[in-house]
């Protein structure tokens, strides 16, 4: 059986994997479909009497100080967070796989150079890498934010894939393919890449959790998702001044982050054990 399908099937049999997958699926579905049925997350229906309302049937998560419905904002923020995370992680994993394969397969100076870069990049906490760019940029448009998060996230994956490529390069079937005169492209795409698919999938799943936390953090600092688009981190920033009047304004987006990251990590853990049973 295809090793990736096999790993997915095995993590589904793992209670952690199943719980994580179901929770993540439910959150993603809620974020995708919810906003269609919910009020406009930017609408400010009235000025005074519906500000800072406690949770009720009309507003299950309450309203914020601008009378906006918090449930709608959490759902729409989820769309943004999940989209940013998925796209950014997709970019990171692609870059990591490409750089890792190049370094591991070509070796020599290319490898040495890339690995020095990876060492250095991993020495700067990712948040600071982003602060360096964002501190100069005025208001970052969303696509740029996604690219920046993606580009600062491939280093760990790159190192991982390089290790795998180095190991696989010595395997007899790769040696045999080389002896038969297969070109590099064919060896990389046909032999190396499929065999790193498992670890890449694990890195991607765990990466989603990390990026959701990172994006929330940036938005909390006011450097992430541009206003007035709702985002979980941005909502918590808004709620900072409402601790006395409307604590629910901050509780719900925070819980959304915890649930999403936790389910991604649970699934990722189960997946890792399925891909590499030694770690179990």
């Amino acid at each position, binding site marked *: 059986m295809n090793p990736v399908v096999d790993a997915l099937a095995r993590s589904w049999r793992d209670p952690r994997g199943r719980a994580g997958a179901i929770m993540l699926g439910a959150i993603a579905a809620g974020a995708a479909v919810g906003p269609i049925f919910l009020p406009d997350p930017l609408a400010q229906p009235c000025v005074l009497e519906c500000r800072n309302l406690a949770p009720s049937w009309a507003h299950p998560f309450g309203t914020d100080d601008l009378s906006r419905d918090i449930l709608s904002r959490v759902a729409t923020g989820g769309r943004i967070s999940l989209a940013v995370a998925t796209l950014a992680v997709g970019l990171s994993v692609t870059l990591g796989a490409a750089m890792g394969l190049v370094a591991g397969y070509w070796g020599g100076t290319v490898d040495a150079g890339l690995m020095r870069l990876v060492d*250095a990049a991993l*020495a700067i906490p990712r948040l600071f890498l982003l602060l360096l*760019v*964002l501190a100069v940029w005025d208001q970052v448009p969303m696509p740029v934010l996604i690219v920046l998060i993606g580009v600062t996230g491939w280093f760990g994956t790159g190192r991982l894939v390089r290790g795998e490529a180095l190991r696989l390069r010595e395997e007899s079937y790769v040696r045999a393919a080389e002896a038969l005169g297969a070109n590099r492209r064919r060896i990389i795409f046909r032999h190396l890449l499929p065999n790193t698919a498992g670890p890449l999938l694990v890195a991607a799943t765990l990466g989603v959790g990390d990026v959701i936390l990172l994006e929330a953090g940036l938005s*909390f*600092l006011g450097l992430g998702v541009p206003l007035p688009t709702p985002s979980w981190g941005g909502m918590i920033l808004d709620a900072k001044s409402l601790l006395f009047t409307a604590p629910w304004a901050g509780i719900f987006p925070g819980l959304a982050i915890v649930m999403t990251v936790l389910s991604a990590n649970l699934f990722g853990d189960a997946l890792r054990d399925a891909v590499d049973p030694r770690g179990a």
Partner: protein
Amino acid sequence: MTAWLARRITQAVVTFGVAVALMFVLMRLAPGDPLSRMQEDRMMDPAEIAKTRAIFKLDQPIHRQFAAFVKGVLRGDLGLSIEHGLPVNTLLASRIGPTLLLGGATILLNFTLGLWLGVRQAVRRGSREDRTLTALSLAGYATPSFWLGLVLAWLVGIKLHWLPVAGMQSPLLAPDAPWLARAADIGAHLVLPALTLSIVTIAGTMRYQRAALLEVLRLPYIGTARAKGIPERAVIWRHAWRNALFPVITLFGLWLPLLVTGAVFVEMVFAWPGLGSLAAGAALGRDYPLVMGTALLAAGLVVTASLLTDVAYALLDPRVRYT
């Protein structure tokens, strides 16, 4: 050992050097230069802007800028903060103490609690307690530090009035109060930030310790120890734990970036006067020399910690070969 150490130090220096170059490149990724926005933001006089630009050598070609920057780093001169108008060095020096205090307290809390819980989990592997602790620590790891900080501040500080939630010292305390009272005051301010940072980072320590101990408990020399008839407590803590500590030491190097990042948010939430809140403020204020300074310091800390980790590892484990 000396040759190995020399090689390891060279490696650290190279890593830091490449990191510095990388930071410079990242700063220049954004369109325009850091001062192009000054005009509308601060309504500065264009002549003033031009002067500042000259101070930061932004009017020169990029390779000159880089050369000037590297020269500054080598001399230990990181320039002037745009926002504070003070040398970046001075600012960093004034903020490093509180951050080290917070970091030290967090490490202490994280490691004592995390190692102990990890050992318990490994000894009772597969039990309900093991699973519950894993779930709790994973939930902690999934929690944004700034949100947890706000929740704890709201609950413990505002609702219960148990602990202070802002700053490092109480403004009401007389400056000539006895040192014990001042220490207790700082300690009380330290509890919530350190607790927040520990909760969000403890999962890594527990998981590492659990896995490392399980690995060791499978080894034959544990059987030898048990067959000798020493108490099980001694088997676990003396024979197994000593060996299971080595992998955890390496965790320290991996874990420091997490701590530095967490400190940015936690210091901001609790108004802790450290490097983290300085960095957050600098990024918000588009104070690019200061952002660069804090990032340099963060990278320096990480590189140094990873170097020290390796050295500690080599010193503690009699088997490590210095090759």
